[in-house]
């Protein structure tokens, strides 16, 4: 599939940087500086940029353990709610511990996705 017609997951819009971009675009729209259609295009650009950046630039690895509280699989999206979870980064001695974490995960083998 040609790269320019390809759709990317909108999943990462919920990350902090995605929320920040969305907030900024909201402000610009409510100030009548830009049109909502333009904001949608920018968000689509963001989907592509962050997907590519995470795939190309990031090499870090991570393992985590915990107790699975809730799991759900719907429309090819896994959602886990894990309690008492411990994250171990590959070059960090101190593990990160959280009471609970939610995982939202899309299929990496989505048709048309770059592999």
């Amino acid at each position, binding site marked *: 599939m040609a790269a320019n017609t390809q759709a990317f997951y909108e*999943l*990462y819009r*919920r*990350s*902090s*940087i995605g929320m*920040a*971009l969305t*907030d*900024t*675009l909201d402000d*610009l729209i409510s100030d009548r500086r*830009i*049109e909502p*259609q*333009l904001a949608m*295009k*920018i968000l689509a*650009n*963001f989907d*592509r*940029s*962050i*997907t*590519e*950046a*995470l*795939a190309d*630039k*990031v090499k*870090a*690895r*991570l*393992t*985590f*353990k915990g*107790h*699975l*509280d*809730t*799991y759900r699989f719907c429309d090819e999206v*896994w959602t*886990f*709610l*894990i309690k008492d979870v411990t*994250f171990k*980064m590959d*070059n*960090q001695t101190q593990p*990160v511990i*959280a009471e*609970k*974490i*939610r*995982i*939202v*995960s*899309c*299929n*990496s083998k989505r048709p048309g996705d770059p592999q």
Partner: protein
Amino acid sequence: MSNAQVGNVYQQIIADVIESSRVDFEEGGVDASALDELRQVRVHSHLQRPLPSNSLLHVVATFPWDPKPEPPQAIVQPPTVPSNAGSYMNNSPNGQPQPMPQMHPINNHGNVTRIKPDPGMENPAGGQGPYQSQPLPAIPNATPAQQRAAQHLQNSYGQRAAASINAIQGAAQQPGNAQPNMQQHMQMQQQRQMQMQQQQLRGGPMPPQMAARPSMSSEQYKQAIATQTQQKNQLHGGQSAQPQNGPHIKVENGLNAAQTDGAGDEDEVVGLVKQFNENGEEIGMARVEIDGLIRQKIEVMGQKMEGGGLMLPLKQASTPSKRQRKVARSAASDLAQHDGPGSDDDKKDDDFDEDAINSDLDDPDDGLNDEEDDDEGMGHIMLCMYDKVQRVKNKWKCVMKDGVLTVNGKEYVFHKAQGEYEW
């Protein structure tokens, strides 16, 4: 460590998004300064820690006399020429647009200063800009900044900017501002004048003599009035103003009149704001005063909307479940209807049983929803893609990739993650 990478990766994403959106901005004809504002993405407020300093805060310069912020560097945006630009060109007698005069104003020291044209305003082809109406006369006693502001206004807005240019000229001729290189002082003075006028406006309708601004000489004031009157005559075919009793503000908008002669030209969207005194004579108003009036009117309109309950804050607005409880209560208390078949609204009340069932379902009592809402509020979330999800009895093993993890107020990125957990 994946946390240390976050800043760099995000910075790269921001730059990439900005670059790839530049084309879309151009296509949309949007001022590129909005794009630069995007660069100020407020990541640090979400992460509660600052990003590397070089990713931040590209401050957009705004000029007090500029109705629209300009992009700070000369980039991207060629001046968009309206298709009907010709309507703003006052033809000179020989039918040729007059070339833009190169301005050589003489300041107080007798030095000749060349005014650098604004980026994007340069017109290589003899200066055939959209609003090239008349050559602007050099303002005596003006600082280069004032000259330049006046020139910019003239270029951008043609005739309509006459009042603003007059204001600049007026400020230049005040003795307090006679010294060159006192630009900041001048700007402060202008702002003070604006504030003063706005306060006067809020205090009620102005007596006619107050409308004459102290900074304007009477000649310039007459000139401003003449410009406004001329515009009015152009729009309304010289129709005479009707006398009114008492001070009265009249807002005329060309859009209100039905149009039968095809697509509109730009003249149609020009609104006129006029103020009349008791004798029905028109009171000339400066641009700032007109702006104030329009603002007042819009605020009144906004208050009316809020009075309708459309724009209540979220907390005060009734939620669906509350509304249904209200319906249930009123349905229970109301007696049967005696005045014939009901309207659509009444049918809803008849379907009271359905509402009751729904209202039970809508009650957010089940614990699952609560937990998930909490999670979103706390922001402990991992967004990623899965390669593999396996389960043997109650043991789960997952392989995730390309994820963003937000936990304990920190953010991590990872290429691969393995998770093991039991249910």
